[in-house]
């Protein structure tokens, strides 16, 4: 018994995998960038708070009196930023952990050693989590120091950190589990984010709807289910802690109980993953075996007609690339779920009559545009890197297709894959123009605003795709560049310049431009707020054209640069 218990140390649980993973991860450049960005964001948050104090207060006595409130704001913001960032980072970090071993054909090799599947899974999980805990630890001294100014209960910091760690472990375990059966890291990451979004947001919303509008039977069931869902949702736990500690409400969730529940769920997922890893490893050694349903589907898929190349082969290839899961059943379910969500939102909108309000269309259209731009960015960022990952780029470049044809073909093809979002948005706009809720001027102004956003995002994504080795890296770099351009620079500018030019820099953001357009076309007077002036249709069109030309030029330059770089480092792709 004692010998069994003594075996339960970290090194027995993880074997040599932990050490190997820690060594490998610490050598990756991305880790250093991650740490730098994290510290930069933390510094920025404190900087903004400092700016807020010095700008708005009059006397030093007033500044001191406000100190505890500022500290409370900084602490809450830091804890929430950490809470969100840690979950996203752990998903991204662990999404490639097992599939990389599978496609480098090292998983089967590991199985021939005394290392067992539990050590593989736990080794991978803890190596990723430890690296992120280091990031989490960076902010601890800051929180400890600012506590001196009062306003923060240490219990809040402890509960916030514990909720963050358990949420991180849970998200990490799911990501790890998906990485066993998903070929690409980004697919595992998007599946994890999708599942977490459903568990943390869609499911509670559904329960709330049932509680509100369902029959008595469904309402009772939903209320009972909601009680359980409430305990396993870290967002609710965090929110509950925040509101309680600042006296906005009473604690409704015992965070200790929530953390224990999350740890138990994590253990279940890990046990399932351990079982799957062994299967995957044996499958690799003995030749991949498909499940019964997959076999049936692949058989069915083998018999379907061959697709014929039409038009540009590059665009055709991009359009043929599978979106989401290859599994037809999952694909159908996803489509049904998407349709249900869309119909549900519109149904609720009509039921509660908020769709009859003109202002309600601003967030809806912004959601459509954001989805369209993000989806295009995701597709474009993977265009060249997927060729590198599949090691097909050299053979593609051996064809007489010009660099221009390849870059622009890939760009158009990838952007066309998001066409369905733009079609839905157009239908929405046309319907509500006919209903008299949106001014028809939107049909002229919005395309310019959308194009400025699309061209800058997609050209950066294409540039990253050409220059990075993997799709995950290309997406992460694109997001980082956009965050620097549209979040970091405006904030730093606001802090340094304190006024002049800030508005101009803020309005350079295509999403802000879109907001101005939408605000204008949903008010009766068709006036648009550019800087502090109110301009009419022509003024707004001119302003949009100005940014449209600038962004088109910048986008074109980046695409030309991508063409130039396409044939450089062809063979530097990550070897699978």
């Amino acid at each position, binding site marked *: 018994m004692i010998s069994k218990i003594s075996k339960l140390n970290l090194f027995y649980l993880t074997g040599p995998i932990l050490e190997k993973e820690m060594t490998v991860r610490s050598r990756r450049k991305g880790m250093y960038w991650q740490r730098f960005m994290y510290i930069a964001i933390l510094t920025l948050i404190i900087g903004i708070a400092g700016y807020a104090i010095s700008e708005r207060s009059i006397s030093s006595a007033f500044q001191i009196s406000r100190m505890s409130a500022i500290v409370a704001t900084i602490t809450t913001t830091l804890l929430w930023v950490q809470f969100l960032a840690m979950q996203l980072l752990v998903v991204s970090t662990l999404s490639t952990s097992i599939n990389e071993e599978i496609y480098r054909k090292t998983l089967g090799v590991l199985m021939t050693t005394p290392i067992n599947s539990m050590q593989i899974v736990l080794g991978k999980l803890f190596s990723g989590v430890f690296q992120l805990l280091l990031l989490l630890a960076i902010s601890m001294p800051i929180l400890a120091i600012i506590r001196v100014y009062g306003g923060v209960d240490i219990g809040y910091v402890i509960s916030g950190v514990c909720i963050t760690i358990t949420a991180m472990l849970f998200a990490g375990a799911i990501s790890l589990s998906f990485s066993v059966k998903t070929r690409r890291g980004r697919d595992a990451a998007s599946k994890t984010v999708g599942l977490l979004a459903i568990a943390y947001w869609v499911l509670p919303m559904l329960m709330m709807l049932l509680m509100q509008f369902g029959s008595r039977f469904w309402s009772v069931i939903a209320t009972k289910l909601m009680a359980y869902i409430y305990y396993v949702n870290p967002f609710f736990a965090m929110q509950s802690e925040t509101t309680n500690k600042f006296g906005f409400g009473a604690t409704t969730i015992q965070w200790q109980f929530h953390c224990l529940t999350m740890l138990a769920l994590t253990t279940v997922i890990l046990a399932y993953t351990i079982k799957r890893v062994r299967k995957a490893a044996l499958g690799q050694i003995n030749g991949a075996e498909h499940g019964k349903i997959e076999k049936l589907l692949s058989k069915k898929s083998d018999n379907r007609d061959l697709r014929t*190349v039409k038009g540009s*082969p590059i665009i055709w290839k991009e359009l043929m690339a599978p979106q989401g899961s290859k599994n037809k059943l999952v694909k159908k379910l996803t489509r049904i779920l998407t349709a249900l969500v869309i119909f549900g939102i519109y149904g609720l909108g009509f039921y509660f009559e908020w769709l009859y309000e003109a202002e309600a269309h601003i967030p809806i259209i912004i959601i459509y545009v954001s989805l369209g731009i993000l989806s295009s960015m995701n597709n474009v960022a993977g265009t060249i890197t997927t060729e590198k990952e599949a090691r*097909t780029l*050299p053979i593609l470049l051996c064809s007489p297709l010009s660099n221009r044809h390849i870059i622009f073909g890939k760009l158009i093809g990838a952007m066309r894959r998001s066409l369905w979002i733009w079609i839905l948005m157009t239908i929405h706009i046309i319907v509500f123009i006919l209903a008299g809720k949106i001014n028809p001027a939107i049909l002229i102004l919005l395309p310019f605003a959308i194009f400025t956003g699309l061209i800058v995002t997609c050209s950066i994504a294409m540039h990253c795709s050409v220059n990075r080795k993997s799709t995950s890296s290309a997406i992460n770099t694109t997001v980082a560049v956009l965050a620097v351009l549209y979040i970091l620079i405006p904030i730093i500018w606001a802090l340094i310049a304190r006024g002049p030019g800030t508005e101009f820099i803020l309005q350079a953001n295509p999403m802000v431009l879109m907001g101005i357009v939408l605000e204008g076309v949903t008010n009766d007077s068709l006036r648009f707020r550019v800087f502090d002036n109110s301009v009419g249709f022509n003024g707004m069109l001119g302003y949009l054209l100005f940014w449209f030309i600038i962004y088109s030029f910048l986008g074109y330059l980046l695409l030309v640069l991508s063409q130039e770089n396409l044939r450089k480092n062809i063979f530097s792709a990550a070897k699978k």
Partner: protein
Amino acid sequence: MIETKNLTKYYGSLAALQNLDLHIGAGEIFGFIGPNGAGKTTSMRILATLLDQTSGTAFIDGMNVNKNGKKIRKLVGYMPDFMGVYDDLKVFEYLEFFAAAFSIERKQRKSIVQGVLELTDLQGKSHAAVDSLSRGMQQRLGLARVLIHDPKVLILDEPASGLDPRARIEIRGLLRELKNMGKTIMISSHILSELEEICDQVGIIECGQLVFNGSMEDIRQKMGVNRKVRVQVADGQKDIAVKLLNNIEDIENINTENSHIAITLRETKKNEGIIAKTLVNGDINIISIEPEQLNLDDAFLHLTKGLVN
């Protein structure tokens, strides 16, 4: 058809290729042999317009590869040393995609794709997903892909690596068929014996430098293989036979090995007929006279020094 002059490629301070001079005639099969890291792949990538050389020039069909990239790509079919696959395409779709990439008209694509599938014996696999094919099948598909635009020149980087003996024999047969179709083929391998039967010319490269360039016959000459003969005579007659053979001026050296007598003829005299004549005249019962076979492994070791970049 293919010509390189002082072709040099540096990766930082590492010389992957140093003053490589090659000349491959039209319709020839050129075997490019060398150990791993010798510079074979680098040379082929330069010829396939995928890599720029540091100095020197390379020509295909009289055109400079650096200045006529697009024209060269139409002329050349390049098969890399790894098989990149689009896992979302089927065999027919994969080939049709490349047919479209080579601007083959839509009406002709189907028949061309079927033609290359037939040539590479992949007709039965046209509906199979590319990533479900075995290694040998994928190599064949790679060959089918390079043939899709009917190129004059084929550059094949280790097409038989990792294949089983049957698949290797099949690939060799396919290459012979392609040679008969008039294609110029440059094929690399790190195993000399693999190319022996099919190559007109062989280039042996080591540490980025060409250490040998010539035909298989030239290798035999260089190894002195044509001058070596093994004779077996009846029991008890070996010593008499050696005495008789010692009298022949054209013989440079005689060694007895178990039941055989190994004879090395002088370089200028290559007529082994004199051995049979002398032994018959001396009433020796000859069981066999055979020229010594070229041991390609020995030849490779003889021609290279085992240096690695």
